[in-house]
């Protein structure tokens, strides 16, 4: 029999380290919001002739869009991001670029006004918060026949926040390196993680519930560990099949839903880890009142300092 639950403080250490790195990145680099959250226009143009990226950049700057961001998104295809463009400004910009770089077609155009951007950012934040509270209430309700059902809800939601933090942190590191921006697909991926992570946690909690009823052992830690071992195959296999389809999406569809795929992938790994190693073991910590062990050297350090 594996002893999964016994190594819980190692898990907390690993998670803590990843979250800390993520938080540092979030503070230092932050998340770059896309036009959905800040307003502006995004124009994708495909040129017929080869175009030099830096010349294009120069030309766009020369036309007065000094804050423009220009990215190459494919063969002779460029994404130009500016502040909100009026119809006339857009027509002038496109005319000026085709004058200089030859014929081009506009493959995509998005424009978001500041009003809508504020609304979107606010509602996305509300959605994530409501989802977390909803999950807390639901898990508490689903385990209402257990002693202290609130603990199950709380531990499940802590695992959830853990996944969200890791996904945000890792994404922030990636976006600092690769210049990615967060868009609505990011929020969609985030909420999909919420659903998935709790799903995995509930399966394990369900097994704990069953084993407690069967009276497998008087020791709570033994019960939890046994439940973890019993459900381990399921936890890993389901994650694997989901990862397969997410990878297929990543390789074949790529850029357009890149944000979703990447966030969901990070969340999937974090969620699998937290549903096995964080949520159930937190139940043990709570049951055994081991909170003190989290900070054993903290007072010591203080004394030294």
């Amino acid at each position: 029999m594996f002893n999964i639950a016994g190594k819980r403080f190692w898990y907390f250490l690993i998670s803590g380290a990843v979250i800390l790195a993520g938080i540092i990145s979030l503070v230092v680099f932050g998340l770059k919001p896309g036009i959905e959250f800040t307003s502006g226009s995004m124009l994708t143009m495909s040129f017929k002739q080869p175009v030099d990226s830096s010349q294009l950049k120069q030309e766009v700057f020369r036309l007065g869009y000094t804050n423009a961001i220009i990215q190459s998104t494919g063969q002779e295809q460029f994404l130009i991001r500016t502040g909100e463009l009026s119809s006339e400004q857009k027509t002038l910009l496109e005319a000026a670029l085709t004058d200089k770089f030859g014929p081009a077609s506009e493959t995509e155009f998005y424009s978001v006004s500041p009003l809508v951007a504020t609304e979107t950012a606010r509602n996305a934040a509300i959605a994530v918060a409501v989802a977390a509270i909803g999950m807390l209430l639901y898990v508490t309700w689903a385990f209402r026949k257990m002693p202290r059902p609130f603990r199950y809800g709380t531990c499940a939601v802590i695992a959830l926040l853990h996944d969200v933090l890791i996904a945000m942190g890792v994404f922030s590191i990636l976006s600092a390196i690769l210049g990615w921006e967060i868009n609505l697909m990011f929020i969609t991926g985030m909420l999909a993680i919420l659903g998935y992570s709790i799903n995995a946690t509930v399966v394990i909690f369900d097994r704990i519930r069953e084993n407690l009823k069967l009276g497998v052992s008087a020791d709570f830690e033994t019960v939890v560990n046994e439940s973890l071992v019993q459900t381990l195959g399921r936890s890993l296999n389901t994650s694997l099949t989901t990862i397969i389809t997410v990878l297929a999406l990543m390789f074949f569809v790529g850029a357009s839903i890149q944000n979703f795929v990447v966030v969901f992938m990070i969340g999937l790994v974090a969620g699998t880890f937290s549903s096995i190693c964080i949520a159930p073991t937190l139940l043990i910590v709570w049951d055994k009142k081991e909170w003190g062990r989290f900070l054993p050297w903290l007072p010591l350090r203080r004394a030294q300092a």
Partner: protein
Amino acid sequence: MRRNTLTFILILLVIGFATWLILPLQGERLGRQGMRLGLDLVGGVHLVYEAQFPEGATAEEKAQDMERALNTISRRIDKYGVTDPIIQQLGADRILVQLPGFTDIEAAKSLVEQTGFLEFRSVELDADGQPVYLSNYLSDNRTEFFDRSEAGSRVFVARRDIPDRKIKKDNPVVFIVKEGGRLKFTDETGDPIDTAWLKDYASEMPSWIPARGNSGVQLTGGYLTEAIPTVAQQVTGPDYQVSIKWNDEGSIIFDQIAKRLYNSGAYGTPQRALGIFLDNKLISDPQIQEPAYNGSAVITGGFTQAEVTELANLLSSGALPMPLKKPPLYQEKVSATLGASFIEMSLKAGIIGLLLVMLFMIAYYRLPGLMASIALLFYAVLVLALFKMIPVTLNLAGLGGFIVSLGMAVDANVLIFERMKEEFRAGRTLGAAIEAGFNRAWSAIRDSNVTTILACLILYWLGSSIVASAAVMGFALTLTIGVLVSMLTAITVTRTLLRLFVGTRLAKKTRLFNVV
């Protein structure tokens, strides 16, 4: 066992029906349509506008205006022959317009945005019956209009292009309104403007005032019953015009105005002209040639064929009851070629993902894995059939949600099979282990799937509450349908298939079940 055979036949029937239902997947065949595809997959334009109501409009008036605006926009778009356009109200003051397959975003915007407010104006006359120009208003610090009987706004339009100010010929340059006992020079939106630069142009811009009937009612496009593009053959070539017909009331007002203008001056003088204004732009200022027109007239102005078609469309679809804020709150345009490549890529991702998941399930769980794989195929067919029946508009995110759900749909089977193994190891027979596996895994399947659905509901709410929403809602909807259907296929279908083997020779080979 008999009951199981019946269930099996029922499942085959359902699958057969669902397969028939989903074909063709794309395009049209044998008179049946393919899946309904979102704008990002077929290409098209997505716009969201905010209505600008006059100050002090009541909620009831706003609701009425919104309804009229939606109707007007629908009529305008109908004439362009866009298939399945969506024109919807969002919230209290927003209008969503989706035009699948129509990728000229600027044309789409001008079609929707133009208020289409047609009004008739005549040139203001001073006390001596002489036409008033902007220069007259600028020359002294006047606090009164020249024609005090007319309190409405004065419009001055450019008589030639003014490149420095980016103003084209016939477009409004300045308005004069009377406010608080003083005359105020404003732009189109009512903000005060600097008049210093106007001096060079002021003496050529006549003051246009509303043309009213004897009862004081202004002649507007609201009195039109018909507007059709026509062409008159002239010596110089075809002259494109719009023929209009007035209703009874409009006919009387029009003739009263015509008679007054006819008698106001000689042919060719400014006071003899009737200004036809569309959204404050002068589209034509023909000379009145007869004292009475008896209900019909033509609008000429050196138009092109495309211009008269658009003008006639605007006039006959009616004016918007209120202007829309420009630029739109949200604009999105995807080219058709980009959409087509998305479909191809998603199809590849879906098929490869599906095959890999099946391969894994069979390699790991053997015979039950094969059954789960068949159930997964059924799942894919059923979900697609539901998408078509409901119907769900599939966009890129929705397709993504569906593909991810293929991986998650086997979750219930994984749960059940793992449980089966345990029960078998605990000493049950294979048949009993299968039944126990299904029964005991149920509470976990139920409780865990509810959480996914809960997250989807919240996502759907988020999607419906924001403007750039189609992607989020599509994802939430496809994932919810996926979770619900997967509970059905992973449990009912797999169980029925597995039961077919219980009691046969195959069932003795425990290796096939990978349970040892």
